[in-house]
Each structure stands twice: as C-alpha cells, then as structure tokens.
C-alpha cells in the first residue's frame, strides 16, 4: 500500500521558478538576520535583559514591510504567478495551544537567545556552536509530534496504514 507521500503533489511542482524564488527570498531574509545581528544570541539576550532595545526595530521593520505587502496584495484580485494561489493574510485560529505553545517558546527563547530563523542564519555566519540549539529544536519538534500522536485521539483524516 502506498503512503500519502506518493499521492501528495508538492507545492513547488507548480512552476520551475518556485524553488529558485524561495531561495532568493530566503537569501534576503538571511542577510537581514545577519545585518540586524539577530543571528547572535548575545544580542537577543541583551534585548531581553533591557540593555539594548534595538530588536524592536528588527521585528517592527519586518512586520511593517510585510503588512504593507500583505494588505495591498490581499485586497487585490491577483493570484500568485508561481502557484496560482490567492493572496491572503496569515490568520490562525485562537486556541489553548497558541497560549501554551507561545509560553513554552518564550521560556526557550529567554533561556537561549535563539529562535528558528535566527538559528539558521547563525549557522550561516559560521557559528557552529548553534548546532546544539538546532539539534534541540529538532528534538523538541519531534517530541511534541510524538506526544500529540500517541496521547491525543488521531484525526479522521489520518491514513489507516
């Protein structure tokens, strides 16, 4: 019996330019994380300890650019050229997981000074020590998946293999 893997079309099948464009976007994103110094855990920890508030401008600057682009595009009738998707805003439903997950993430961020994107960029600037953090993130992501699958009733959409 074939798994869902064989049946699932992948997002990037839509256009040969899909992956190159994602790489370019990621590249710019990574430059931003390096320029802002957010790739250095020390800078993030100094922000959290109130000795340099500059990180407000990183998140604020990024969210400002994104809000202009998201609001403009999503109020048009245009669709994305490389996927045919409609432009939407990112609106997630509110539930207990958002509160618990956000709090757990906050403890991790405050303890380490890293977050996922900044950790990838940190590896890029040659900070190999960050691999401890990245390894931890994979362990944590696996743990929550394992616990959710084994402790919660599985959804009806799961394959029956």
């Amino acid at each position: 019996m074939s798994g869902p893997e064989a049946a699932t079309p992948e997002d990037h099948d839509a256009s040969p330019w899909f992956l190159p464009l994602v790489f370019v976007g990621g590249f710019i994103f990574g430059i931003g994380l390096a320029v802002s110094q957010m790739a250095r855990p020390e800078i993030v920890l100094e922000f959290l300890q109130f000795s340099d508030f500059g990180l407000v401008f990183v998140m604020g600057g990024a969210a400002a650019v994104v809000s202009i682009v998201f609001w403009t595009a999503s109020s048009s009738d245009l669709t994305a050229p490389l996927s045919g998707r409609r432009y939407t805003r990112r609106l997630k439903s509110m539930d207990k997981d958002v509160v618990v997950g956000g709090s757990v993430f906050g403890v991790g961020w405050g303890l380490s000074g890293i977050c996922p994107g900044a950790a990838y960029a940190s590896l890029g600037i040659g900070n190999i020590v960050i691999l401890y953090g990245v390894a931890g993130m994979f362990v944590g992501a696996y743990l929550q998946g394992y616990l959710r699958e084994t402790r919660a009733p599985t959804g009806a959409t799961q394959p029956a293999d």
Partner: protein
Amino acid sequence: MTLTPLLIETLFPRGVSHYLLGGILIGLGTAVIYLGTGIHAGASTFLESTLSYASKLSRFQQPKFIASRDWRVVFTLGIVAGAAAYSLAMGEFGWTTDVQPSRLFLGGILIGMGTRLGKGCTSGHGVCGVGSGSKTSILNVALFMLVAIGVAQLVFAMGVRP
C-alpha cells in the same frame, strides 16, 4: 537639549540603523516569497516538515508537510547562504557564540516544542502574523516576549554568564 541623545544612547547603545535595515530586509525576503507564491513563509515549520523525511509518524506525514518540505529546505538553505554571504563580505564570518551549549540545547528543545504547538515562531507569528493584524499572532508574540524577558532576567539574576 542633551537629554534626548542621552536617552537614545541608553536605550540603543549600538544605534538603530542596522536593526531597522535588517528588519526591512527580513520583511522583503518574506514579501518576495509571498508575492511569487502566495505563501506566508515562517521558519519553524521546517522542523516538522523536515522530520517527515525520516519519521513515519503520521503527525509528520501530513500532506501539508510533504507538499512543502522541499521548498522549506530550500528556504532554510537560502537563509544560511544569505547570512554566510553577508558575514563573508563583512569579514565577520566565523564568529561563535559564548552562550553555553546546554542553554542552547535545552532552549532549542523548548523552542521546537513551543513553536510547533503554538502554530508559529518569531517569523510566522511575529512577522507574517503581526503584519496581517492577526489577533492570535499578536497575543502569541506578546506572550512569548513577556515570558522570554522574565526568563532571561531570571537566568541573568541567577548569575549565569553568558
């Protein structure tokens, strides 16, 4: 007359321009992917979607992870490459953190759990969600920010350096 510059220097001892420029570039990178594909790219889904290559758990074998895992790897490689290119160009490549590996590893575990349970991280909720005016994201960001400030201050007060 000297109060304002003094205040700015106290709050922002390294200045603000590189912070703002970096933030704008992070926003532009997100915008490029969005305008091309309609996708709100966050950095933390990569963790789960990449696990789908290795784990048979149906949690990770969801169609949304299978469909996006290849481009999420490419997105992450782009982030690594962009940061590498900048640091090489600036002659800063090879900087390493003094933050203790145990803090990074333990923090990483909590980040992996919390971002996936909470439906996003600093980029998914903090940039895309807040930029969308999502109440869920604004609440999530306010919460992780406050908790992180409390934890970082507590760890510092306990004498952990760095």
